[in-house]
């Protein structure tokens, strides 16, 4: 493991890689600070820029965007009560009251240092667990992979917010779309009505449309509303020791964030709320949670950053993304001809380990940029929404074209943008669709391989203890979720 980690550090030891890391961090902060532009959108927009890059700098840049956007999302949440990313919503509960009390600088320092500490601890967890997961997965066959995909998809549905049925519809819509293209086992054409669909729905343009272009339309809806007013005076460096009383909180929230990150579909918002609720129960201080308790800011920010590493673990080791952003990162790996999963650790260990190394190297840079650049990030949040929408939209169109150098990709992005916008209007979120697009092929290939091995018997999938257990857990989760939601409605 240490040898591979050194390999990862040496892969990063180039000007290109370090520059990519810095650019990723800066872009991630910018993305996180702008309300409405989430980490997923940032990564999707950046994917086309990585086509011409080498795999290691490209992936380090994408991961840096993911991590830094979670850092940056807390800035507008604390300053104006508008979370930059969904995972920062809980930070606003106590961060904004602290700002109202004149403690904006302390709240921001706590959030940035808490984020840094959470990222560091979760990176250690990631390094310790990803290789183990990959080693275990090396023994997996079609039954286990099929069961893993089913469990992943069922978790995505059960952990989604809103209607279970609508999440299921989004998921199935995504699964149906994965059938388009050349059959992965026989090579027969399926639903290839135009030549551009030979390799299936173009993944990068579809992501750009679902996440970024749809958001452009939403930003246009509110483009004429007044911008929030930011406080102009911030003093962050004066209180670097503020994290000292919160180390217990940092450790607990990191563990919660990492574990929730590993679970597909759970995401940063759930982790930050879970950590927040845990600390709220343990709180014995004079300031109640929700009224400016610093522990609330630390818990939510530590957890939502720990989620990033948690989501990377199953993505790299098993090929199962822990979040929508991780699903898009799979697209980044595929662009460079890399297939996530246990063989990535065997065949190209420099790739996952350079990501681990970039997380460790990027951490102090992110903390320093967060503290030193607070005023700049505040200015970013003041850019008019109409301008942000236009620039993001232009990047979407250019990026979609660049992904395959043809108009068809742009058409796909536009179509998915409109579909994403309309589906979100009826509360069908893009995350289940994207995760189905990623896991659909894995599920189909392994289902069919399993059926061939098992002489067309579905019992084959229950014959292995691992796949049987995973499928039983998936079924239980769906039933429990269905039952509890029905009770909640009643």
């Amino acid at each position, binding site marked *: 493991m240490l040898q591979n980690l050194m390999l990862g550090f040496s892969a990063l030891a180039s000007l290109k890689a370090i520059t990519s890391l810095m650019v990723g961090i800066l872009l991630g902060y910018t993305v996180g600070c702008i309300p409405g532009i989430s980490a997923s959108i940032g990564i999707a927009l950046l994917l086309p820029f990585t086509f*011409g890059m080498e795999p290691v700098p490209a992936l380090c840049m994408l991961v840096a965007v993911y991590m830094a956007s979670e850092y940056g999302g807390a800035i507008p949440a604390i300053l104006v009560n508008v979370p930059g990313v969904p995972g920062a919503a809980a930070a606003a509960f106590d961060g904004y009251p602290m700002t109202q009390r004149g403690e904006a600088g302390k709240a921001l320092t706590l959030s940035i240092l808490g984020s840094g500490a959470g990222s560091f601890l979760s990176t250690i967890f990631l390094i310790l667990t990803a290789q183990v997961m990959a080693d275990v997965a090396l023994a997996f066959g079609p039954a286990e992979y099929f069961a893993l995909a089913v469990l992943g998809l069922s978790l995505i549905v059960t952990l989604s917010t809103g209607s279970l049925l609508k999440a299921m519809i989004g998921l199935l819509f995504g699964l149906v779309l994965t059938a388009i293209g050349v059959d992965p086992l026989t090579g027969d054409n399926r639903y290839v009505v135009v030549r551009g669909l030979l390799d299936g729905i173009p993944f990068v343009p579809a992501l750009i449309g679902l996440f970024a*272009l749809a958001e452009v339309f939403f930003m246009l809806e509110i483009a004429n509303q007044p911008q929030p007013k930011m406080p102009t005076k911030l003093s962050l460096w004066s209180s670097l020791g503020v994290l000292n009383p919160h180390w217990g909180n940092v450790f607990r929230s990191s563990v919660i964030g990492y574990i929730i990150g590993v679970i597909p579909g759970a995401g940063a918002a759930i982790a930050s709320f879970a950590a927040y609720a845990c600390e709220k129960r343990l709180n014995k201080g004079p300031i109640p949670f929700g009224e400016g308790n610093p522990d609330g800011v630390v818990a939510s920010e530590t957890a939502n950053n720990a989620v990033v590493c948690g989501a990377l673990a199953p993505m790299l080791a098993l090929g199962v993304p822990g979040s929508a952003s991780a699903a898009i990162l799979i697209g980044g790996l595929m662009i460079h001809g890399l297939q996530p999963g246990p063989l990535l650790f065997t065949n190209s260990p420099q790739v996952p380990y350079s990501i681990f190394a970039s997380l460790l190297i990027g951490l102090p840079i992110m903390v320093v940029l967060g503290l030193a650049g607070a005023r700049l990030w505040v200015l970013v949040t003041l850019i008019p929404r109409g301008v942000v929408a*236009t620039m993001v939209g232009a990047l979407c169109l250019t990026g979609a074209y660049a992904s395959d150098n*043809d108009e068809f990709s742009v058409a796909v992005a536009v179509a998915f943008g409109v579909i994403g916008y309309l589906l979100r209007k009826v509360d069908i979120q893009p995350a289940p669709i994207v995760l189905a697009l990623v896991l659909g092929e894995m599920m189909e290939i392994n289902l*069919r391989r399993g059926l061939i091995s098992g002489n067309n018997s579905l019992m084959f999938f229950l014959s292995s203890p691992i796949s049987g257990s995973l499928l039983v857990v998936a079924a239980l989760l769906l039933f429990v979720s269905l039952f509890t939601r029905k009770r909640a409605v009643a």
Partner: protein
Amino acid sequence: MAAQEQTDGPPPRQPIFREVWGDVTVAIAMLAVAAAFYFGADAIETPQATEIGPRAYPKACSLALAIAAAALLAGAIVRVTKSELGETIAFPRFGAVAIAALITGVVAVTLEDLGFNLVIGVWVLVMCLLGGVRSPLMLVALCGGYLLFAKVVFQLLLKTPLP
């Protein structure tokens, strides 16, 4: 900084639907998608006629999608009969969003024929106007700035040819 429209006076009229009608629309659309994929699977030319061939998986998925969509439709119909129409789904600035979607669609079919600079330049200009930017200087700066950015980053640095 760009001039922004202000929200003075009563809010402008906007299309509003009740949640239940949104559910009905999406359920019908998904039923149509499921039907297209289910029956389209029969047109897949394959020498494999067994259940583990390339037709079975899309058929199974589209059947599941149809069942889920039918459940959504049935639930919506029950709610309509009980007059439980649910929350409202609003489309603020519908005109601006519709124009944006339309011109974005036009980009997809004219980009290669008319060229990147012209098509994206016009697109940025229209989107800025829709987004409330009124200052001529800002409009020129945003259009020119983006085209320059795309030229430098995509064509010069990333060696990605733009039409």
